[in-house]
């Protein structure tokens, strides 16, 4: 049985902000897959991707790495394997 994992209340609101902006990117990606010539959507995609990267950097500084296989940096000791995993929070 996994031990109960505690996160500060701010984790949920910070995570939700990141989920919201990354959802915009998923939605824009699928839209652009079938509307590749929509310049406004493309601009929105590129600016949203920059905002997402900034937000993710702040989130990772507070709660640890989000991305696997070297796409997020780790402090010492190795943080990637740390709980909580998404299904625990």
């Amino acid at each position, binding site marked *: 049985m996994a031990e109960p994992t505690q996160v500060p209340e701010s984790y949920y609101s910070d*995570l939700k902000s990141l*989920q919201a902006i990354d*959802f915009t990117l998923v939605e824009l990606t*699928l*839209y652009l897959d079938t509307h590749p010539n929509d310049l406004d959507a493309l601009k929105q995609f590129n600016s949203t991707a920059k905002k997402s990267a900034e937000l993710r950097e702040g989130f990772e500084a507070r709660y640890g790495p989000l991305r*696997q296989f070297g796409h997020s940096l780790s402090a010492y000791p190795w943080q990637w394997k740390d709980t909580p995993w*998404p299904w625990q929070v």
Partner: protein
Amino acid sequence: MWYYEKKLQYPVRVGICNPKMAKFLIEQYGGADGELAAALRYLNQRYTIPGRVMGLLNDIGTEEFAHLEMIATMVYKLTKDATPEQLKEAGLGEHYVDHGKSVYYHNAAGQNFSMGLQSKGDPIADLYEDIAAEEKARSTYQWIINISDDPQINDSLGFLREREIVHSQRFREAVELLKEEQTKKRVF
């Protein structure tokens, strides 16, 4: 290849132990029109679909794995504190005997995931299949929401239901794109 991101696509908050709800939800985990079937179908079809819509199949297939993880998280959280007696009462006695508290790829009736995946190698056949599958999954989410009285679960299920609509829409556009391409070829 793929990279894991250590977050769910959309929040899944579960405040109660409700194994009966988990039994319904598992339909979208290992059922015929569930998220696993969707992910495997699109990522399999993408190899032979015309290049114009390869990216779409690839990206929707990838998103389905994020949905699969959301469903698994709901099932896990709804059952993790259940007693064997509660699981039995919820109709998960057989599941418990075979799998304990593990989540598992079967449908709401307990039938193991079946590889009856539709992948014909014919672009129109595959895309119409995908549109139908998204609409069936949307219906299933609606039926589950209709019999659920858990507002937190229903919030997450509402998100997933909306995604089925968007995927269906994108697949319909893909059909039109391929039809346009075919028409162009005839003109030349």
